[in-house]
């Protein structure tokens, strides 16, 4: 950098600060509201910070039977989806990368296409299909739909991880007399483990957060997932219980936030590979 306007740096910091306020303020507000009593929220002279770290809103949110059951439903759906998607996509991703068949092109095309189509076009036939086989209003039906729609992305992610494993390692293992299965188990699987964990976490989070399919396919209150229950919570009593609502929203974010904290380094490192400067 040669001559520089002395104002440049302060202006850059000012801009960064503005961005940080825009990004952080809603989050901080949600966090503080979750700890405020109803009186504090409605007081004509609100303070920014809550008076004390009382957990009443959190207990109120957890004690609501519908939210608790919805969280259970979400957890069950997300875990089952993740197990199915991982089990199915692992061999498929391996085959698509290692055996260069026409399948790979078709699969890649499908993965891209599945990102583009409006869900409204898919949900009507899916609804009819699930209705015909009696799976509307069941978590099993939801799991099936989630698994199929999480598959393309999981496949795409896993393909990248498989491709990163040098094929020479497998060849060396084969030369040493290991069968294909043994090679897969001893060589490929351990190297693939981090990618597998990332992929399954992604799948878990996506089904934990999903709203649209659940909205259409689940009408029974007992079968609601957490996003559905929260959306209804707002519809029914949005004005009444702001504190517990904020607390419940925060709790519902926890799995994804923890996950993102865990993989943040890897995520930025992966996306920004070759990024580290000086």
């Amino acid at each position, binding site marked *: 950098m*040669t001559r520089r306007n002395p104002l440049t740096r302060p202006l850059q910091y000012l801009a960064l600060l503005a961005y940080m306020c825009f990004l952080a303020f809603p989050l901080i*507000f949600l966090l503080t509201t979750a700890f405020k009593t109803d009186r504090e929220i409605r007081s004509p002279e609100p303070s920014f910070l809550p008076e004390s770290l009382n957990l009443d809103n959190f207990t109120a949110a957890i004690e609501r039977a519908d939210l608790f059951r919805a969280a259970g439903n979400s957890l069950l759906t997300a875990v089952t989806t993740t197990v199915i998607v991982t089990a199915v996509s692992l061999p498929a991703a391996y085959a698509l990368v290692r*055996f260069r068949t026409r399948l790979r092109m078709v699969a890649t095309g499908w993965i891209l296409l599945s990102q583009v*189509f409006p869900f*409204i*076009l898919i949900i009507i036939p899916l*609804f009819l299909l699930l209705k015909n086989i009696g799976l509307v209003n069941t978590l099993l039906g939801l799991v099936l739909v989630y698994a*199929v729609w999480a598959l393309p992305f999981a496949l795409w992610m896993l393909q990248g991880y498989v491709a990163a494993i040098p094929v020479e390692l497998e060849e060396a293992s084969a030369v040493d007399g290991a069968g294909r299965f043994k090679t897969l188990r001893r060589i490929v699987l351990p190297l693939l483990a981090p990618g597998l964990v990332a992929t399954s976490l992604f799948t878990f989070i996506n089904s934990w957060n999903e709203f649209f399919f659940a909205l259409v396919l689940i009408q029974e209150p007992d079968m609601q997932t957490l996003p559905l229950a929260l959306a209804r919570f707002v519809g029914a009593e949005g004005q009444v219980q702001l504190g517990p609502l904020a607390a419940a929203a925060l709790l519902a974010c926890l799995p994804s936030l923890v996950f993102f904290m865990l993989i943040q380094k890897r995520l930025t490192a992966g996306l920004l590979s070759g990024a580290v400067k000086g």
Partner: protein
Amino acid sequence: MTALAAPAPTRAPKRRRSTEGRDAWLLVLPALLPVMLFSVYPLVYGVMLGFTDAEAGLNAETHFNGIDNYTALAGNELFWNSFKIGLIWAFAVTALQFLASLGLALLLNLDLRLRWLARTLALIPWAMPPVIIAIMWQLMLNPNYGPVNRTLETLGLPSAINWLGESAIALPVVIIVGVWAGMPQTTITLLAGLQSVPAELNEAAAIDGASTWRRFWHVTLPALRPIITAITTLDLIWNFNSFALVFVLTAGGPGGTTMLPSLFAYNEAFRYGNFGYAAAMGNVMVVLIGAFLFVYLRAQMRRR
């Protein structure tokens, strides 16, 4: 299974290739079957439904009705109005998202303090379910207790604004929430792009006496172009198809001013039970957005 029958020049490679092909099929089959049943089939079925009079209900019979749905749609002002809102929403959110994210990415690419904090903050909306983002902004914009109005009040500005309930401002407000929710992907992608621009290019231009602005315009931006094209295309598709955020924020109100086409079609299908008609709307959406993308991508290709 045609791959198995393909003749090969010599015997040994043939056997090897055909067992490989069979292995590949065996490994891919568990993924292929459910995908065929629950995504290829619904998609084809969905496109076809758009040419029928299918309705919800147990004993409603379904008939093909050719282009009846489309002639009816052509005269459906509400749908086209919703389509217009969808385009305004998708283009506005994509454009603002792009500008805001480019600015943030440029800042994050500098050697500033607190960069890590800004980067973490920029990622958080990504981890939040759209439903929660919508709930959070509802609380923010609450006309009585929300901090936005309270801040305005403290500053002595007009503060009794019902942000999500007034038809004149609801759409712009929803667009801002959309920008907030969608910034992470765009920022991180652009940041990755910026960091892959070779520093030598900028240094060379600086030695040649190019100002910061000219370097940005003539060096950085052209190098970023492919990434910009990719992410704006994806953003446009995602935004046009987005549902949950606006559904929870306003449900299309007030007075239909935020009725995105996905919400409109959802209501048509699952509130009024007109499956065929709603599927026809889906078809129209696919064709028109596909046409937009085609024109946009071709223009971007030509510029290169």
